[in-house]
């Protein structure tokens, strides 16, 4: 039974991904095109989900917003997974003072209210943001090049969310590695002449990935939510680029007269986060079975 729920959730995610990648072709209107004469039209055959205060088509904006929200969700979780796996694996594998230092860092970061730190970072202008995320002299610029097609603000947002949420993954991976490294196949690899680095990357980390997959899936939902909150507060994705969060924010002022402006992005956030959570649970059960 549970299994079916997970499949439905995964199906929803797949559909969202398809919709997001096909947005330019399936969106009925240009999401940025304003037609004041068509402002605040309720849902109709011409505008399935109505229009906003500037006469932009809500459905089209929602489709493009899916792109932004999913991209931010997936990529910020990737940042968190890579960072968390690396740091957790190092801590768990080497133990001793290395472990102590890294885990105290995790404790410290976990005791910082994430949301306020994020607010502080995204409130700065992009150039400063890249500096603030430094300690990343190499990664910063290369990421920037890689994602030139993405608004640097969005990129910063992704990295910021990722860089602030790797601690859970690190703890998870550390615990896994600590139990795995006592397993006999690690001893077998050592007597076979494998170097510590090889043992870590080839034998330990792949074995520790199952719970990380669960945590990552659950994390995507959280990251999408974080993005929405930041955008809602006007600090995330900047208008006119549509994201579910800033669509909510823009619809907020017209809440009394145009319910469709907040309803559709709200439902999208709800369904997407729910789908990722249910999928994560499903994967967990599938792994633990």
């Amino acid at each position, binding site marked *: 039974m549970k299994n079916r729920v997970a499949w439905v959730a995964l199906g929803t995610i797949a559909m969202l991904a398809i919709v997001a990648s096909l947005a330019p072709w399936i969106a009925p209107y240009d999401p940025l095109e304003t037609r004041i004469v068509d402002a605040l039209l309720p849902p109709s055959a011409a505008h399935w989900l109505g229009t906003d205060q500037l006469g932009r088509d809500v459905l089209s904006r929602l489709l493009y917003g899916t792109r932004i929200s999913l991209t931010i969700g997936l990529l910020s979780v990737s940042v968190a997974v890579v960072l968390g796996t690396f740091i957790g694996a190092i801590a768990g594998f080497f133990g001793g003072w290395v472990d102590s230092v890294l885990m105290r860092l995790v404790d410290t970061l976990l005791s910082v209210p994430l949301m306020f730190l994020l607010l502080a970072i995204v409130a700065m202008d992009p150039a400063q943001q890249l500096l603030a995320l430094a300690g990343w002299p190499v990664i910063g610029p290369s990421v920037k090049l890689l994602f030139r097609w993405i608004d640097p603000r969005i990129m910063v947002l992704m990295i910021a969310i990722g860089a602030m949420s790797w601690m859970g993954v690190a703890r998870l991976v550390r615990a896994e590695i600590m139990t795995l490294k006592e*397993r*006999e*196949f690690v*001893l*077998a*690899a*050592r*007597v*076979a*002449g*494998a*170097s510590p680095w090889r043992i870590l990357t*080839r*034998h330990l980390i*792949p*074995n520790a990935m199952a719970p990380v997959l669960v945590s990552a899936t659950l994390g995507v939902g959280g990251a999408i939510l974080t993005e929405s909150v930041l955008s809602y507060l006007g600090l995330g994705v900047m208008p006119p680029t549509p994201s579910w969060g800033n669509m909510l924010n823009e619809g907020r002022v017209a809440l009394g007269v145009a319910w469709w402006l907040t309803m559709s992005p709200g439902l999208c956030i709800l369904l997407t986060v729910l789908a990722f959570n249910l999928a994560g649970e499903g994967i967990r059960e599938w792994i633990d079975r």
Partner: protein
Amino acid sequence: MDRSVMPLLQLDSLTVEYRGDGEVVRAVDDVTLSVETGESLAIVGESGSGKTTLALAVTRLIQPPGSVVAGRALFEGRDLFALRADELRRVRGGRISYVFQDPATSLNPVLTVGEQLSEAIELHTDRRAERARAYGVELLERVGIRAAPQRYDAYPHELSGGMRQRVMIAMAIATRPKLLIADEPTTALDVTVQVQILRLLVELQRDLGLSMLLITHDLTIVERTCARVAVMYAGRLVEEGAVADVFANPAHPYTRGLLACRPAWGAVGRQLSTMPGQSPDLAKLPPGCAFVPRCPLVEPRCRERLPTLDTTAEGRRVRCVKPFSKPGA
């Protein structure tokens, strides 16, 4: 010393200690042993006798709080304890291979048989990846795995226990090592499979000219597989000699006791004999012979001083003040 007359592996007064809570446990105490090229030596003892620790020490795998506190281990004339990390990695898996007790836990569950086999091959030979597959399949066939190409792509959980152990053995011989250490290689397997695996080990040892160090608590295995046997008790060597001699005339009371505990053919309905007492606490060994509390022939002098490991006329080494001798001698 001339290398050609040196044994393949020579342990000199090897001593391993574990420290903790103010106690020092000597898991391996002053063991001197040698394994010749192409020879098979069994190390026999109860749990806690130090036989596995000895094997781990040879591959330098003793982890803190344990450490090798004295002695040398010469392999092909080189002191294993003086090797640099990269030299050691070449010896491990390359010149000395290891087969563990439980193949279910000593294979990596997320890698296929082929991936693990080719790891051993890639680490120690300069075979290319595409050749590695052909060689890997050949190895699987060599250790008696049917449908080898299919098994090459299987994951460990898709194989039976016996087949997994065959895979472990294939990995161990992949690099054409000189010495194979097998630590209780059949203990985790069904009895019928045990026989097959032992037969395979003996066959490989003979055909490839391997030296084998077989760690076991099971004397019936020793008889089938090895030419020489070393009996350990409380970390010390108590008797060592040719299997046929030792089994026919055990000289140490402990060896005699162990042999008496074996189930014999045709002994149906007869009660199995057991050895009284239990294996000693290594942290609180008596000053004299460690076997005193269980020895049927104990004398006052046994308690005073640790007996030396003496070589008898037949070339056997025994650590007892009053060894049994040949009947009528």
